[in-house]
């Protein structure tokens, strides 16, 4: 029996096989969407680049060489040119992928989880619990995200960790909203009534039965939001409140290139392109995942 047959077996022999089989079907659906696959390739590249940056980068990202300042792209040895300290821009972008990825990973494991818990709890219990949690959400939503993140970083002090914390704290309210909306439709379903009749406790119902139904919408939302997260991280870096020099963070690089924008355009443009491509990758993948994960689209 080949692996494919094992995955497509209509009568799986174990939990693991059933789950992998479902994942395989999802993969088949995703594969038919060329744009989503393009997104996936971009994100795959980001992962590879982040993992192998020391091997891929031709130069040390923070080694300065003032003789080679502001070399244009195409210069031998510096394919994307050099910045105002003579550092190789390509190497800095490759290393910057690590920081971007770290920011994304940290935000992705904190904000959605927080939002999911708050949203499902509010939606499941309703009443005053709902009122309190949702007003709290509204307060966070009332501020523009960047402003709130700025305020938080100003309080916590600049630095990449605090930037991540600030982004995570400002990113959860939309997930809470999505999760609550989803919970409200699921809450009155017969299968929830059935498990309540079995004597299940509220945490068990929320975690085991409600959350799996909210997860697809939240995951889609997360992928679509990742572009925004990158931009906010870059924005904080640009304003000098995120990563600190000489770290090669993309936003910080754009900020540094600002001074030379007209004469040496590549200093700001190259990291800008990197941000653009990665954001695009996440958006494309998010759209594709919507088709794969949305229980309404997958049919009966």
């Amino acid at each position: 029996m080949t692996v494919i047959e094992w995955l497509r077996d209509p009568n799986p022999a174990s939990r693991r096989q059933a789950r992998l089989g479902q994942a395989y079907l999802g993969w088949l659906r995703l594969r038919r969407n060329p744009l989503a696959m393009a997104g996936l390739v971009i994100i795959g590249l980001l992962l590879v680049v982040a993992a192998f940056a020391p091997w891929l980068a031709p130069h040390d990202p923070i080694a300065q060489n003032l003789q080679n300042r502001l070399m244009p792209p195409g210069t031998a040895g510096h394919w994307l040119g050099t910045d105002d300290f003579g550092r190789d821009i390509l190497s800095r972008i490759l290393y910057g992928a690590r920081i971007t990825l770290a920011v994304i990973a940290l935000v992705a494991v904190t904000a959605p989880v927080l939002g999911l818990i708050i949203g499902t709890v509010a939606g499941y219990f309703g009443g005053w619990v709902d009122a309190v949690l949702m007003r709290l959400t509204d307060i966070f939503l009332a501020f523009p995200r960047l402003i709130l993140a700025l305020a938080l970083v100003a309080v916590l002090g600049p630095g990449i960790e605090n930037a991540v914390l600030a982004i995570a704290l400002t990113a959860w309210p939309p997930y809470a909203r999505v999760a609550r909306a989803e919970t409200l439709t699921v809450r009155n379903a017969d299968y929830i009534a059935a498990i309540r009749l079995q004597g299940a406790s509220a945490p068990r119902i929320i975690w085991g039965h409600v959350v799996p139904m909210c997860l697809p919408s939240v995951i889609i939302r997360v992928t679509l939001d990742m572009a925004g997260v990158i931009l906010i991280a870059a924005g904080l870096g640009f304003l000098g409140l995120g990563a600190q020099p000489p770290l090669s963070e993309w936003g910080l690089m754009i900020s540094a290139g600002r001074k030379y924008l007209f004469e040496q355009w590549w200093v700001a443009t190259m990291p800008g392109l990197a941000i653009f491509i990665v954001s695009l990758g996440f958006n494309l993948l998010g759209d594709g995942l919507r088709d794969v994960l949305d229980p309404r689209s997958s049919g009966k």
Partner: protein
Amino acid sequence: MQNGRADMGLIDIENLSVVFPGGVRAVEGVSLSVGARESYGLVGESGSGKSTILRAICGLAPVSSGSIRIGGEVLRRDRRFAARVQMVFQDPYASLHPRHTLDRTLSEPLAIHGIGDADRRVVQALEQVGLPTSFRFRYPHQLSGGQRQRVAIARALMLEPEILLLDEPTSALDASVQAEVLNLLARLRAERGLTFLMVSHDLAVVDHMCDRVLVMQQGRAVEELPRAALAAAQMQTAYARSLFEASADRML
């Protein structure tokens, strides 16, 4: 057949009223008593409150007055209650969690009640309701409507309850599948000595399954009929008669 007296029924409902928030009076002053191992039917049209009575027993609808007793005890909806009373819902497409395998659906009640030996019990439950054990790790969307309803019945029986509340268990199914599910329910009742409280809009189904029938209209009990009186068309009230006449082709 045991004749349930008001003072010795397994399920005793006295003067039950259910008013939903917003003032909708779904059930008004209904009393009924179901003896142990009896099969009792509730019939009526939509809005008659028949399903609401089942939901009130389970705590899924608010009881505004009256009392519900199970085995003489006033109801507390705790785990012990779950082990005594279970429900099968109308729509098998909506009553199984779409992202759980049958294994998860069937073993969940065991996990909640801390009952071990889940593997053996799940396999046994599938066999009991006539499903192949190879279905164990399937998802609901890989099953037909009738197979899903079998799973829902298996789930309701996992905790070995005495009472099964059946809310139109076959009305979403094709006729031939309905026959299979009704046969399954009848067999399980005989084997396990279950007590049924069954809701249906189909007089033929209720007649086939139940010993006594309560006809309901707009939240009120209209008339209680033993099975023989139903088949012989011996109803006293005009409404029960009109319901019977509209179902006359069910005699064929």
